[in-house]
């Protein structure tokens, strides 16, 4: 089933001061950095936060990927670089940030 897409007005009601959108940008940068450096503890905390909050603020795609990764962390399973890349891509799409070419 296709997820309803929140309108700009919906997002504005949920995040009137843009605080959550600002967090998404901070998280995107942190995830890129932490995955490069292999700091899994901090990466896990950020992903867990996104898994719990992104869907509530209307960012369902980010939330779905974050939940999938969070579940793997909880189960003690390996988190693949491809899964992190999907999360970064979902963040970049939501923020309108051009994806890195390399």
């Amino acid at each position, binding site marked *: 089933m296709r997820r309803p897409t*929140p309108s700009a007005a919906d997002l504005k*009601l949920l995040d009137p001061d843009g605080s959550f959108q600002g967090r998404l940008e901070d998280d995107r940068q942190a995830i890129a950095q932490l995955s490069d450096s292999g700091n899994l503890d901090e990466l896990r905390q950020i992903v*867990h*936060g996104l898994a719990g909050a992104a869907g*509530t603020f209307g960012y369902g795609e980010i*939330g779905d990927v974050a939940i999938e990764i969070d579940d793997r962390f909880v189960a003690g399973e390996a988190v693949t670089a491809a899964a992190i890349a999907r999360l970064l891509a979902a963040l970049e799409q939501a923020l309108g940030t051009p994806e890195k070419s390399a």
Partner: protein
Amino acid sequence: MTLDLGHAEGNAAASKDRLQAAPSQARILVVEDDDDIAALLGRELRGLGHTVDLVRYAEDALFAARGNDYALMIVDLGLPDGDGLDLVRELRRRTVEAPILMLTARRRVEDRVIGLTSGADDYLVKPFAVPEVRARVSALLRRPSRLRGHRIAIANMVVDSDALEAVVDGVSLALPRKQFQLLELLARRKNHMTPKRMIEETLYGFDDDVTANSIEAQISKLRRALKAAGAGVALETRRGIGYRLVGSIQASN
């Protein structure tokens, strides 16, 4: 396609119509360390006319609960200084009766079951939809106090009708069935006289053999059990009228 947010600011009149049976201007404690989620809950609940206190830490929640009579608490399970489950257990141990809605990103059925058996009244998995959390809050606030959690607190004792047990200072009090029924009845009518006839009708069926001293004997046993457990209550007798359970000490919270 857009989300049906039914936001308090954007759709306040419709929300108020739907929620007309819910008490307005309740005082609600939100224990949540995610600033964005906390701010969202604060906006939504204040938009419905409630007074909202936001805290990040379990320790702050215990402090806030000590000084305020909250109508509802919303507790996230993952707190920086401890597990929300422990917070809920401690609140119940301190005889806090307010309904508790748990928020958590833990999605397993067993996690939800543990949450509810720890003393929460309802459970909402993150990410939640705003209309759902609003509806659950309203449903919990609409409950008559006698149905909220089926727990009656008197001084340092909690009588739990669901668990069929009385707890004094966090320690379960082993009571035979009749004595628990008697305690539950008196607790529901705390500070009020309960006529002997009402006790007879509650404890005994039509076919039971009830002697003149049956109730007195049960009262006497219950009084001894409460005293032995250190319950800060007094079971008073008024000859010819009935019995009354009152708190004789303040809860130690």
